[in-house]
């Protein structure tokens, strides 16, 4: 794979953060959070890699969602 651009690295970093937060949840629900993160990222997998505004918008949205779901009160996601 060619060198990843800064934006691609940022998207991957966000995904890694989602996975890290999933590991902090109770054992039995970790898979739910990981599946949710995967689904959300896969929704926009067809985006053109040069469509910066759309990518940045989705990243901001993802960041906001991550902040909400990472809070310790959230125990499960369906």
């Amino acid at each position, binding site marked *: 794979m060619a060198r990843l651009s800064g934006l691609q690295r940022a998207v991957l970093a966000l995904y890694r953060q989602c996975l890290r937060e999933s590991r902090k949840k109770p054992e039995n629900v970790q898979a739910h959070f990981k599946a949710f993160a995967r689904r959300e990222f896969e929704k*926009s997998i067809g*985006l053109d890699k040069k*469509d910066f505004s*759309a990518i940045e*918008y989705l990243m*901001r949205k993802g960041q*906001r969602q991550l902040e909400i779901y990472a809070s310790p009160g959230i125990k499960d996601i369906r």
Partner: protein
Amino acid sequence: METVTGATTTGAVPPTQTTTVKEPAADPDSKIKTFHIDRWSPDEPSTKPRIQIYTLDPNRTGPMMLDALIRIKNEVDPTLTFRRSCREGICGSCAMNIDGAVSQPTPRQKARSNPLPHTYVVKDIVPDLTQFYKQYKSIKPYLQRSTPAPDGKEYRQSKEERKKLDGLYECILCACCSTSCPSYWWNSDEYLGPAVLMQSYRWLADSRDEHKEERKAQLDNSMSLYRCHTILNCSRTCPKGLNPGYAIAEIKKAMAF
């Protein structure tokens, strides 16, 4: 650029969006107002934001920009999205950029409507204010005391001390001032902005609060407070007629001693 008019004669508007009110035909003497409104949908993030033009007869609509927007949403284009609540200029939900001036859509005959400047947009003219709210939370906008009340019941305050809070407590956190401040445009992640700073002063000036030194220490860096260069767009644009610029000057004075 699409043009959606109130009249149904063009046939370009799909049947589900035809208006039930027959607007008069284009008459050179009639004052049909056109509204150029920013549109963008997060459901298709790849599409570019665009300006959509609507025409309405102002005689049949209420006097405010918000009335026009509501009418457009009801009759012409139900997909238009905006925040609104009190419809009388008291809650600050509908704060937006009208003809270049940031305010709430109260009695004016202006025709361009854009979201609050330099904010991320959730949809159409709805701005994303999460940063603004986080900054408000960071100044701890609640009474902080270390000692209990002297008589065990209320925290008492004289009339003069209460008077100091006039012009500060009425802030409705509509974000008009912060989003009209060029300094806040360029530094919104670190500069707190006039709205939050005015609330910070509201707690500094409150005689019942006992954590003044901590509050001042929190502002004692180069960015949170001192990005204010007295541009004073904030005081000019406040829809409630408050004076954030003055409050910030008072904070700077308090910090100097």
